[in-house]
């Protein structure tokens, strides 16, 4: 028998700032949180001019040095988001200790790796490399640091799934709780902005060169110009309904189903057929039909090819009646954080019965399928929401959220 899995806590560090309230206020006020890059134009060939960066803040008073010493920014963001989720969920004592962690990131900290190789290659000297560098570089740096900072002794998972790592983190946590392997999981994704990622999308011809942040990320629009990279962290506290009821924790939403699949045909560009299969598998896992879904929160990162494939896939499964929105116009693509920050938005959309519009979308591109875009103002929609996330490497994830 499968356990019911509910969300009982949420935490966010986003381009809007620190905390879920900052995220929700920014999204519901329709504010674009993208910024001009400070040192743009410095690197030949890199034409990226905007990013969705987290406002800088001195975190020395919030995370003690003994914890912070092994944390690059992504782990610091994840730690703050995890603490917020724990506080919201009222998780403490032995229940907190017996909680697992499933938090993915696109990479370990590129900046820390840069520090190491600056000493190793340029300096030809290992003597000044700190003992803590590797803990920032390792693939499960965000998950391991959260487990340590929060005192969680359950399993530590860190899905390596690039831009889908956050939603994959939720999915693996959902499966661990649903199967009864863990009672509770802190899950999600975290990333820090680094030119390596922006430059990769640049090389793929998928990065936006637009200088005006308000016009830089325009999912599904005929004038879309590509991805705007960002950073942040999102963490959900998932637990079995049994655990939530035993603790007296209020369920905020229920995870109805999840699917993880692979576009085996292309490592860079998921195709519509694979996306259709992935969404259909998530619906099947949730025991729902397409007509049961009230809204789709798309991955849509404002690339020419990606938005087209996803839009056509959504049209293929849901037709022209189901509202579809992307939140990349609000925050850009926060990499591993996007799946979770956007899921947090979905929880609020479920709760309020409204679907946010796609910011920056004025003229929908017909090549993205005849889907029902949410333009300008939120629309009313009550019922389950399907959330997509895709990644380089052909990784596809879809999650179904429903009211608790």
């Amino acid at each position, binding site marked *: 028998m499968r356990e019911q899995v509910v969300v009982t806590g949420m935490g966010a560090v986003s381009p809007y700032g620190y905390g879920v309230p900052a995220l929700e206020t920014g999204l519901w006020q329709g504010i674009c949180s993208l910024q001009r890059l400070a040192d743009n134009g410095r690197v030949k060939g890199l034409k990226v001019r905007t990013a969705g960066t987290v406002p800088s803040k001195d975190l*020395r008073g919030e995370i003690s*040095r*003994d914890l912070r*010493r092994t944390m690059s920014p992504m782990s610091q963001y994840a730690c703050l988001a995890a603490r917020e989720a724990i506080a919201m969920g009222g998780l403490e004592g032995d229940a907190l200790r017996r909680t697992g962690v499933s938090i993915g990131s696109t990479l370990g900290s590129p900046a820390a790796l840069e520090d190491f190789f600056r000493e190793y290659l340029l300096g030809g000297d290992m*003597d*000044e490399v*700190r*003992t*803590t560098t590797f803990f920032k570089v390792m693939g499960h740096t965000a998950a391991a640091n959260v487990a340590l900072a929060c005192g969680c002794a359950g399993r530590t998972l860190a899905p390596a799934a690039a831009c889908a790592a956050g939603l994959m983190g939720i999915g693996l946590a959902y499966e661990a709780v649903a199967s009864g392997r863990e009672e509770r999981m802190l899950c999600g994704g975290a990333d820090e902005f680094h030119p390596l990622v922006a430059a990769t999308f640049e090389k793929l011809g998928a990065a936006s060169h637009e200088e005006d942040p308000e016009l830089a990320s325009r999912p599904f629009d005929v004038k879309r110009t590509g991805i705007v990279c960002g950073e942040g962290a999102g963490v959900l506290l998932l637990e079995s309904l049994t655990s939530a009821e035993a603790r007296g924790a209020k369920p905020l939403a229920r995870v109805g189903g999840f699917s993880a699949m692979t576009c085996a045909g292309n490592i860079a560009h998921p195709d519509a057929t694979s996306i259709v299969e992935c969404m259909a598998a998530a619906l099947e896992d949730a025991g729902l039909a397409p007509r049961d879904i009230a809204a789709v929160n798309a991955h849509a990162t404002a690339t020419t090819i990606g938005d087209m494939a996803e839009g056509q896939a959504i049209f293929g499964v849901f037709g022209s009646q189901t509202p579809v929105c992307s939140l990349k116009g609000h925050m850009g693509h926060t990499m591993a954080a996007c799946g979770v920050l956007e899921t947090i938005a979905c929880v609020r959309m479920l709760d309020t019965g409204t679907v946010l519009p796609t910011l920056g979308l004025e003229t929908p591109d017909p090549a993205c399928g005849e889907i029902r875009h949410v333009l300008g103002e939120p629309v009313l929609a009550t019922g389950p929401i399907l959330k997509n996330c895709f990644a380089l490497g052909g990784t596809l994830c879809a999650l179904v959220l429903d009211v608790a």
Partner: protein
Amino acid sequence: MTNDEIAATVNRAIAEEFELAPERLRPEAHIRDDLGLDSLDIVDLVIVIEKAFGFKLTNREAMMDIRTLGDIHAFIAALRDKGEAGA
């Protein structure tokens, strides 16, 4: 460099690296028990000291036997006396 200057240089470097309030940096303060540094910190402590004084220890392992902050001051002073350090 006088003993006081050595102590001030060591304390300044340690206070900054390990975010310790200067008033905690008494010579008798135990590195682990009073200042809360652990084995990872103590490896990095060597790097911090080397940077502060601009020299490299030929025998880094000798630093591992140090127990108190005053031991570090004395260790550097001894290197100075032997002419092995820039101190």
